[in-house]
């Protein structure tokens, strides 16, 4: 998306209170926040949901599959 590039690169942190209510969209179980990788990890679904520009992308199609 072209608009994305025009957005300033600030405000990229996810609010801790948002992290409290976010769950895995499939299993509805809690998520692990990997601040370094900017990912929200669902151990139950074995999926890692990316955070881009401070927006958690909670779509299964966009998640990274975690292999054993």
């Amino acid at each position: 998306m072209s608009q994305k590039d025009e957005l300033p690169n600030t405000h990229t942190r996810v609010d801790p209170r948002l992290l409290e209510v976010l769950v895995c969209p499939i299993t509805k179980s809690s998520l692990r926040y990997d601040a370094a990788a900017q990912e929200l990890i669902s151990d139950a679904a074995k999926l890692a949901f990316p955070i881009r520009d401070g927006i958690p992308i909670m779509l299964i199609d966009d998640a990274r599959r975690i292999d054993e």
Partner: protein
Amino acid sequence: MVNRPQKKTEKSKLNNASENGQTETTQSGFGYQKTAPEMRTKLVREVFESVAPKYDVMNDVMSLGIHRLWKRDFVNGVAPKADEAILDLAGGTGDIAFLMQNARSRFTEPDNKITICDINPAMLNVGKQRAMDKGLHGKFDWVEGNAEELPFDDNSFDVVTIAFGLRNVTRLSKALSDILRVLKPGGRFYCLEFSHIPVPLLQKAYDRYSFGFLPWAGEKIAGDRAAYQYLAESIRAFPDQAALVKLMQNAGFNAVAYRNLSIGIAAIHHGFKG
């Protein structure tokens, strides 16, 4: 661009809008075209990516400019409070969330953020940019998510709103159940959506407008005839007022009621959890 999808026989089996009318209601048509649910979700996403930059213009064309008044009316009805946890679904461009933020900070400055969830990154980017332009940045949490598979914990919100979004959801009853799940007990849900005019002659006139004029206007304004064709068809295919009441009741909402706007071109439905 919207590609004309080929019917996938295997996926079509998933399209189980049951004949005896129980449980799942699947909006399988891409407009009127029959498509598998997964395919439809993807196609709807493409439509909104295509129209995102001219979303306001599109709404003006589709509602004869009245959508601005409808949205104000809608937010007045929601009457959001400063201390309430609020989720706005399909709210990417921020229209409803901005109005709610203004309404609820009239007397007390809220210390929590409104959560805006949309399946479409293009719409979220439009909204984020507009929030910054309005000096409202930091008042909202932005989440990319699907209304049918909400990434929020049970009993999280006092209020859930969706304006001109439910029509684009593939599995309506699945979305309604998940909305109920994330609401706190006693929480309320409000939906603003295009609906059906209960006067046949007027409905006919409106159909002529939306099927005749809209795709043409879409091509002229946004350069995308197919997207506007979808929008016109999706309005017509969406359940009427009474049918949506029934779907909400079946999902488990209490005290479900609706109110027509502009003689039923749009309607506001609401219901409570518990």
